[in-house]
Every structure is written in structure tokens, then in C-alpha cells.
């Protein structure tokens, strides 16, 4: 395993009484694309700001490219490029001028103008290079933001919600571009998102972030395993006729079946969680119990469902806390 570029140890951040990030241990290896997934307000942006040294952690340690952002933020910022979620440009300057300004702030040497033009070409904005940044569309601004991050030639780039507000085709192109650039230049990429679908296209590893803690991490297949822990299948059945609300009538029988781990009942629908595909067995059980089965469906967990389930779980816990 290669040496990690970014590590956090027991990282915590409090905003008043609210714990935005709690005991985060994260390792990002060199050259990988790591996706930080989580709902809004999970603490993704706060974590990113702490990695960059733009916010001080309440406790715990961060190390980025071998430096501590809390004590030497400038060294970290020299090596880490950051694209914020609502990136803005100086509207009265052209895209090229915006890029040149950033290049000068980074004390870049040589022909800044040509370097900037080269990066604009790379992100496909060469036609709009001389237009005022104020006239750019959202997707173009995002591309300009990427050029802005790349022009500094960083070792690591951090993208906060890079796909926000871009149309689906734009998202695909944008993520493809990030992947190509990362592979081409051996860049380490950390990107945060709340769209699992988009992220799974490009990420080598993802971490799921809920309420300030990382609840799962790994590549997508192993993640799916971790998240299901023996419940990769769900069978949903609907019983017609009047049944009493509360426990499903056949819960005991179903639980007694081999491979069934849980049974829930909601809105007239029975959900059976099981480790193997035992749909026929369940159907037989229901029918022999004398129930009128009007609908039976085997659900395989897609990543989206996993994700949904965790976020709903998160919502539940929040509601319980309130």
C-alpha cells in the first residue's frame, strides 16, 4: 500500500454545541480518486476546510502532503488545489484573466498567459477564454474552476460538490475529465458529493459520511458488502384483504426460515430481509398460511438503495434525537 497523502486522526470539529465532524479517521492514498459521500450537512465541507487549514479543528490531527494545515496552511495550500462548492470568479474579468490572476498569486514563472490558455484548452473552454466570466454558464464556471485548480499544478485536488447544478450530460463529461486528468498526471483527487451514482462512475474508493462520522469506506463492491452485512436481498410482499396493522401475521413463520434475518411490516407490505435468494420459499410460506398474496417482488440492493437506507436511517436518528 502506498503512503497516504492525506490522513486525519480522531478529527473533531464543533460549532457551538453541534458536533459537525466527530472522530474522523481518514486515509487517502497517492494517486487515487476518493469520494466523500453524504447528505447535506454531514460535515463533508467542514472536513475539507480543515484539510486545507481554512478552519481549525477542535481536536485531532490532520496531515496533508506531510504538513499540518493548522500550523503551516500556506505549505498545504501550495500543494493542494481546492474547488469550492459555489465557486465564483471576478465577473468583470475574462476567464483567461481570472486564470492568470490565480497563476500570479501562486508566483508562477514563465509565460503565464500561454500556460493558462493550455489549461483552458484542456477543460474545453478555449472558445470562451476571452469572454467575461460573468457570462459563463454554471457548467462553464465549474470547468473554469477545474482549470483554476489545475493551473497551479497541485499534487492533490479537492473538489467540493463538483457536479452541483450541472446537467446530467455535463456531469458525465466533467467526471470523465477529472478521471482522465487524474490518470494522466497521477493526481490524487478527493471529491465530495451527495450523488452516489455520479461518484461511483469515477471513484476508486468512497467513504460514506453521516452526521460527522464515516460509517463505511472502501471500493464500491466491498462497500456494498459491508453495508448489507448478510442482508443483500429483500423480498417485498403485499397481502390483499384486511390485515391488522402492526406485526405481519406470518412473522414467526418467516423468521423461522433459513437465511431470513428480519421481517418488517409497513403500509400493508411485508419486507423480508434475507441473506440468500429464497423468494420461492417465502412465496410458498405465505400461500400455505392462507394469505392472499397480491404482489411479490425480489429487490436486489443497488448502491442507491444502500445509500438511501443509510440516509433514511440518519434521518430517523435525527428525528429521535429532536
Amino acid at each position: 500500500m502506498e503512503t497516504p497523502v492525506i490522513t486525519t486522526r480522531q478529527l473533531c470539529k464543533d460549532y457551538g454545541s453541534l458536533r459537525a465532524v466527530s472522530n474522523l479517521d481518514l486515509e487517502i492514498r497517492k494517486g487515487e480518486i476518493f469520494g466523500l459521500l453524504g447528505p447535506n450537512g454531514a460535515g463533508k465541507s467542514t472536513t475539507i476546510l480543515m484539510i486545507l487549514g481554512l478552519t481549525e479543528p477542535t481536536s485531532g490531527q490532520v496531515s496533508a502532503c506531510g504538513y499540518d494545515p493548522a500550523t503551516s496552511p500556506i505549505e498545504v495550500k501550495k500543494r493542494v488545489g481546492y474547488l469550492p462548492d459555489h465557486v465564483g470568479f471576478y465577473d468583470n474579468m475574462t476567464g483567461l484573466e481570472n486564470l492568470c490572476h490565480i497563476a500570479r498569486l501562486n508566483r508562477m514563472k514563465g509565460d503565464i498567459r500561454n500556460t493558462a490558455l493550455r489549461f483552458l484548452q484542456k477543460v474545453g473552454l478555449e472558445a470562451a477564454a476571452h469572454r467575461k466570466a460573468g457570462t459563463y454558464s454554471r457548467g462553464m464556471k465549474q470547468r473554469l474552476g477545474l482549470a483554476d485548480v489545475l493551473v497551479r499544478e497541485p499534487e492533490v485536488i479537492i473538489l467540493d460538490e463538483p457536479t452541483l447544478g450541472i446537467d446530467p450530460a455535463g456531469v458525465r463529461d466533467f467526471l470523465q475529465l477529472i478521471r482522465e486528468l487524474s490518470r494522466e498526471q497521477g493526481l490524487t483527487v478527493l471529491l465530495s458529493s451527495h450523488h452516489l451514482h455520479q461518484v461511483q462512475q469515477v471513484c476508486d474508493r468512497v467513504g460514506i459520511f453521516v452526521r460527522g462520522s464515516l460509517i463505511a469506506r472502501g471500493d464500491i463492491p466491498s462497500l456494498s458488502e459491508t453495508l448489507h452485512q448478510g442482508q443483500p436481498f429483500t423480498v417485498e410482499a403485499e397481502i390483499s384483504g384486511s390485515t391488522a396493522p402492526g406485526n405481519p401475521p406470518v412473522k414467526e413463520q418467516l423468521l423461522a426460515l433459513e437465511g431470513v434475518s428480519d421481517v418488517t411490516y409497513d403500509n400493508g407490505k411485508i419486507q423480508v430481509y434475507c441473506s440468500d435468494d429464497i423468494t420461492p420459499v417465502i412465496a410458498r410460506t405465505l400461500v400455505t398460511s392462507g394469505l392472499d398474496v397480491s404482489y411479490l417482488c425480489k429487490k436486489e440492493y443497488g448502491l442507491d438503495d444502500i445509500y438511501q437506507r443509510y440516509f433514511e436511517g440518519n434521518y430517523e436518528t435525527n428525528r429521535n434525537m429532536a
Partner: protein
Amino acid sequence: MRLTAIWHNRIFPALKSNVRAASPSPSPFMVMVRKEMSDHIRSWRFIVLLLMILLTCFGSLYISITHLPEALSNANDPNRDFVFLKLLTASDGSLPPFHVLLGFLGPLLGIGMGFDAVNSEQNNGTLIRVMAQPIPRDYLINAKFTGAIAVIALMFVSLSLLLTGLGMIITGLSPSFEEVLRIAAFVFICIVYVAFWLNLSILFSVKFRRAATSALTAIAVWLFFTVFYQIIIGMTARAFAAPAGSRGSYMLQKFLVTLIDIAPGKLFTDATSTLLIPSVRSLGPLSIRQMQGAIPSSLSFTDSLMVVWPQLTGLIAATIVCFSISYYLFMRREIR
């Protein structure tokens, strides 16, 4: 002037590149200052403010020139030797003289250039992008201040040179060394005065997220000091009026006069009128005994400077206080 030259060389190093062939890339701070300056110069806001100041300048110049002959022929006037100072101060009452008008326009200029300094960057999302660059955080607020003050200084210096030049063409006289010193000191005080309002509005731009709120607050402070401050002090004076002639009444009067005197606008008018009208000998109340035997003559430049020293230090102190508070707030704030 030398300072301006140094600034110029630092800000526009490209012009000197033939002298230093392998010039290092400019420091990020200078890059930011240069950007601020070009932003100001190109903005409509600055052009409008500049036009207003030019209009005032030439309006009052026109009036003072038409009244110059009578002002200079008045044998009782101890200031009649100072033709160029007369150009800046003579008036027939239809338009206040230039330095009084600047007392009104200066705050507007300062507020206009600073009220959205930080909050507009934050609202546009450029603040966090700049903060993610490898530069210290205070560069931004320092550059905002330096850029604006450099533009203002450039404007006042060129304006005063223009005025003096026009005066030379129209009257055919050349200014004395003392007049040059006095005008230079006047320009310096103007710059400090505008810098005070600039810093106050930068302070509000750090404090308030919305540009409109910060502009309105700055204008409210300005209005308070120009209009209501005197009224409130006057009302207080009447309410606490002690029997005339008593020691308590004298102390109270003195205290209230001091309060009126420390309003920034008053500091500016006091300082500039003393410098531009050499016969002004004191800014506080004088007793009959002190006045007795005084010959109506003009003071030397150093004496005038001594008279306005408290005003000058007061203005500079107020400017520094405003800047320190905005610096502190900016360094402490969450930049998201």
C-alpha cells in the same frame, strides 16, 4: 512624491524589467493590490465619484478665480499674499470653498470605495477561492485597503497638481515654497480623512453580509456626524445648563465643545482651514485677554502645523482604530 514613485515601481515592475533582466515574479500581495487598483479605476462607481469631485473642484475654482482680484486687493486681509491658497478657499458664498466641499464629498468617496470590499467577494464565492491560494489571509484585507488608498492618493495628488497648474496659467504667478508645503499638507489630510471613511466602510463590509446594509450603515454614521451629532450635543448643553459664569458651567461648556471637536468631519474642516488660511491662530475658544494685542497676521507653516497637530493625530488614530477592528474581525471570521 517619492513614496508614489516607489509605489509605482513596486506596483508596475514590468516597466522596470529592462533594468532588472531576471526580475522575480511579483509578490502575491502586489498582484492583489494591482488588481484592486484596476478594479477601482475601471468601475463606474469610481468614475461617477471622480466626476463629482472634478465638478466640485472646477466649480469652486471658477468662483474663487472670479473673486480673486477683490480678495487680493483687500489690504486688511493678512492672507492676501497667498494667491494659491486663496484659489482653494476664496468664495462669494454661492458655493462653499473647495476644502469645505471635500469635507462632504470625502466621506462619500471613502464609503463608495469600501462598502462592498469584503462582502461582495464573499457573496460572489471568490473569497474562499482566493483564501485557498497559498497566501496569508491578511493579504486580502491589506490589499483592499492599500489598493483603494493608492487610487485615492493618486487622485488627490493629481487633482492638486492640476489645480496649482491651472492657477499658474490663469494668474501668471508661481506658488511660494510655503504654499506648496501647505497644499501638500492639505492633500495629506484629505487622504487620511478619506482613508478613515474607507476603513469604516471596510469594517462594515466585513461585519455585514449584504453590501446594501453595509453601505446604509456607513452612510448613517456619516449623516449622524454631519447633522445629528451637533444637534444632540446642543440639546444636551441646554438641558444641563448650569448658572452662567459658574465654574461648573465653564467645565461643561469646555467638555461639550471638545465633544463637537472630535467628530471626524470637524477634525477635517478644522485642520484644512488652519492649513489653507494662514491667519487662523487657534481652533479653541480664546479669551479676550489672549486676543489683546494680537496683530492680525499669518502664521508660519510649522506654527499652523502645530495648531492642527491634535486634529491630524486624531484622524490618523481613528483611521488606525477602524482598520484594526476590521482586520481583527476579518481574521476571526468563518470564510464560508
